[in-house]
């Protein structure tokens, strides 16, 4: 990456942080509209963004930020009263900036049309600020739709004469950029690959990047492949200095031990040798733990964003909702945090929309008119738990049953428990809301949430009491980089099965297996019949057909059954042997292997040879389809 691109990448990284900071200020401003110091802070952020975006050559971004800054300045001077309407506009600007940054992340030459939002800024009048905010006016950043909040000021008066001067300023800004505020500008701005000179491109015609709202943070592989000659900016992470220092100290110690060991290689003091190896082992473990902890980030930023979601969602729905956050300092692996955002947004919106009742309903039920959504995170049993609890409606199992019957998900006469009925909300294409609202309830929600969470090795459960509220609990591993794995042998090759997927492993005795015509085999586990799938067959291992590992399918005994229990269907997988149980560091497979099925990655075993990590669920599903 050359110098200029490096600058741009680090700028984008920095701005993302700044925007999050700004958003927090905005929400605080809403609570204390009189507090001018908050406005000052936001102004400072906007000013920073403006200055540096031009310095690194993002002209369009700079132009937009300038207008944003002007708007802020007028709020600061008191020209505009700080009302919910004003804040909504400011937030819309902030969102637009966010989208812009996101697009630039994917492609440094991306441009996002800013006409509409600039129009809104320019036509904003002191009188507008005093207009009571109507629910529609609050911008709702929707994860699935990329739409500018439009037509809000359709009925506005034409801008009064006082705005002429403003227009002049803007007109001047349309000229190719010549501001010498920053000494770096003149050097850096010149080699920019043709920044589009017209800062206001026609709407939508020039959206070069994928619609940013639809693409969350650049995903590991996909985004890198896209974008042609512009390499995706490298991701970075903030690490506390004390952790780094400890790491460096331990590495220093390791180097000393290595020296001692080197001397011992030619000496003959077995006691000293053994002691050194032992101590080295300890230090290595410390270094492993520490280096893993470098990947951990607090949930704070993710959680703070939810404040905004609650604010916007509740104002659209005309509900009063308060978000309580607990445990935002809880740390979790960065990759998990990144994939956690979307599901959380969905769950929070869901709680506001389906959970919390309208103030009237709540009062009628003897509850306080403001509903509470509690978002909490904590560690339990080596896992991260995130709870989203609302004190609203609860989920009515009977209504779900009825709905499931209507949709043909349940057969008439099929009996399911309340618990199973409640879990129907995770079924694809299921939405009980009579009227589809713009906030949630398109019926594509909860099953996607569940799939997303399962993709990061997590689980989701729900508890509910009608009339009292529901609790969604998301259980996640602390890291995806290391897993506890069961090393199994199938047909001479070794594979790793994540221990989290294994319910138990049982030696197959003679008489446990029952071949069934057209259905494969049934394994009887303590009188419970389980379908048995052979790993060598699932993987189409060639040697399975040969002499070495070949067993007739109906042959009794031999091998080990790995029992897997999923919500859908418990099953057993036959492997030849279990080699052991190890903590393994997951190594990603190359993109050339992304189309293979059933492998979650690979890991290097004790003897230095790599082995594949199996995703049994994917493998079993795949082989069933193929059959």
């Amino acid at each position: 990456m050359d110098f200029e691109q490096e600058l741009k990448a680090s700028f984008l990284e920095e701005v993302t942080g700044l925007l999050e900071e700004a958003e927090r200020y905005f929400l605080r401003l809403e609570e204390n509209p009189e507090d001018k110091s908050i406005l000052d802070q936001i102004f400072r952020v906007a000013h920073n963004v403006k200055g540096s975006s031009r310095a690194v050559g993002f002209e369009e971004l700079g132009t937009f930020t300038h207008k944003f800054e002007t708007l802020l300045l007028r709020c600061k001077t008191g020209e505009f009263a700080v009302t919910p309407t004003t804040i909504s506009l400011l937030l819309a600007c902030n969102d637009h900036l966010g989208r812009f940054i996101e697009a630039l992340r994917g492609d440094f030459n991306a441009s996002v049309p800013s006409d509409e939002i600039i129009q809104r800024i320019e036509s904003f009048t002191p009188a507008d600020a005093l207009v009571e905010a109507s629910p529609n006016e609050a911008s709702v950043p929707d994860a699935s739709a990329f739409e500018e909040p439009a037509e809000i000021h359709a009925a506005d008066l034409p801008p009064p004469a006082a705005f002429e001067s403003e227009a002049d300023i803007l007109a001047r800004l349309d000229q190719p950029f010549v501001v010498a505020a920053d000494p770096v500008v003149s050097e850096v701005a010149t080699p920019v690959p043709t920044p589009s000179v017209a800062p206001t491109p026609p709407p939508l015609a020039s959206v070069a990047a994928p619609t940013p709202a639809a693409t969350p943070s650049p995903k590991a592989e996909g985004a890198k492949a896209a974008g042609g000659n512009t390499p995706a900016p490298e991701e970075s992470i903030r690490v506390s200095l004390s952790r780094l220092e400890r790491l460096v100290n331990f590495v220093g110690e390791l180097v000393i031990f290595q020296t001692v060991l080197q001397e011992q290689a030619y000496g003959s003091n077995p006691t000293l040798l053994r002691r050194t190896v032992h101590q080295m082992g300890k230090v290595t473990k410390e270094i492993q733990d520490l280096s893993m902890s470098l990947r951990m980030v607090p949930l704070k930023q993710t959680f703070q964003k939810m404040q905004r979601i609650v604010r916007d969602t509740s104002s659209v729905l005309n509900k009063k909702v308060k978000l309580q956050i607990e445990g935002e300092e809880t740390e979790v692996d960065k990759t998990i945090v990144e994939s956690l955002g979307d599901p959380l947004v969905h769950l929070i919106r869901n709680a506001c929309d389906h959970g919390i009742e309208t103030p009237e309903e709540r009062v009628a039920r003897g509850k306080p008119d403001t509903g509470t959504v509690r978002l909490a995170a904590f560690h339990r049993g080596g896992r991260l738990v995130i709870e989203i609890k609302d004190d609203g409606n609860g989920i009515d199992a009977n209504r779900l049953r009825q709905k499931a019957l209507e949709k043909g998900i349940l057969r008439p006469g099929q009996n399911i428990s309340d618990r199973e009925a409640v879990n129907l909300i995770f079924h694809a294409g299921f939405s009980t809301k009579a009227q589809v609202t713009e906030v949630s309830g398109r019926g594509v929600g909860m099953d996607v949430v569940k799939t997303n969470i399962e993709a990061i090795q997590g689980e989701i459960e729900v508890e509910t009491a009608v009339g009292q509220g529901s609790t969604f609990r998301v259980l996640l591993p602390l890291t995806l980089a290391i897993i506890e794995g069961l090393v199994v042998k199938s047909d001479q090759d070794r594979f790793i099965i994540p221990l989290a997927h294994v319910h138990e492993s049982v030696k197959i005795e003679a008489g446990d297996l029952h071949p069934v015509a057209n259905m494969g085999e049934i394994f009887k586990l303590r009188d419970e019949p389980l379908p048995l799938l052979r790993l060598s067959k699932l993987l189409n291992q060639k040697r399975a057909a040969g002499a070495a590992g070949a067993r007739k399918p109906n042959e009794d005994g031999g091998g080990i059954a790995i029992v897997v229990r999923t919500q859908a269907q418990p099953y057993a997988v036959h492997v030849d042997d279990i080699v052991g149980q190890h903590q393994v560091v997951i190594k990603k497979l190359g993109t050339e292997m992304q189309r293979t099925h059933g492998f979650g990655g690979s890991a290097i075993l004790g003897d230095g040879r790599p082995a594949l990590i199996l995703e049994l669920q994917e493998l079993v599903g795949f082989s069933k389809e193929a059959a």
Partner: protein
Amino acid sequence: MSDNDQNRYLCFMLGKEEYAIPLLTVREVIAVPEITPVPQTPSHFVGIMNLRGQVISVLDLRSKLGIKPNASADTAVIICDLHPNSLGVIVDKVESVLNPDPTHLSPRPQMENSKANDYVTGIYRKEERLILLIDIAKALGATDLGLAARTSGEQKKAA
């Protein structure tokens, strides 16, 4: 010097034929290590190997191009830097580094089935021998290995 690097090639043998790839795509050359096979992959996909803690896929260029392998102690793995990841490529024998004389370089012959051999970027005449200059990524079809096609995600759950 860097100008020189741009134009140098690494020559290797596949069966009885001589090939060369740009030296800049080569990271290192190693002896054939222990390789873990990967089920459900085409036959030229040999498996995965451990290169100092990094897991790398190994492909057999000979079987990909349909050349009869010449089993010998010279068989080697060339680790190629193909953006975004590295790949190991098995060849029969690594020969030498070639610093081609541009006058002996000719473009790829236009043959009828040029689609099938578009990985050949040029031909170099070295004394009496011909060396084929190839684009390794194209030769391997590295972007699309034609591995098991992915089916839609929903059905898997239902199964």
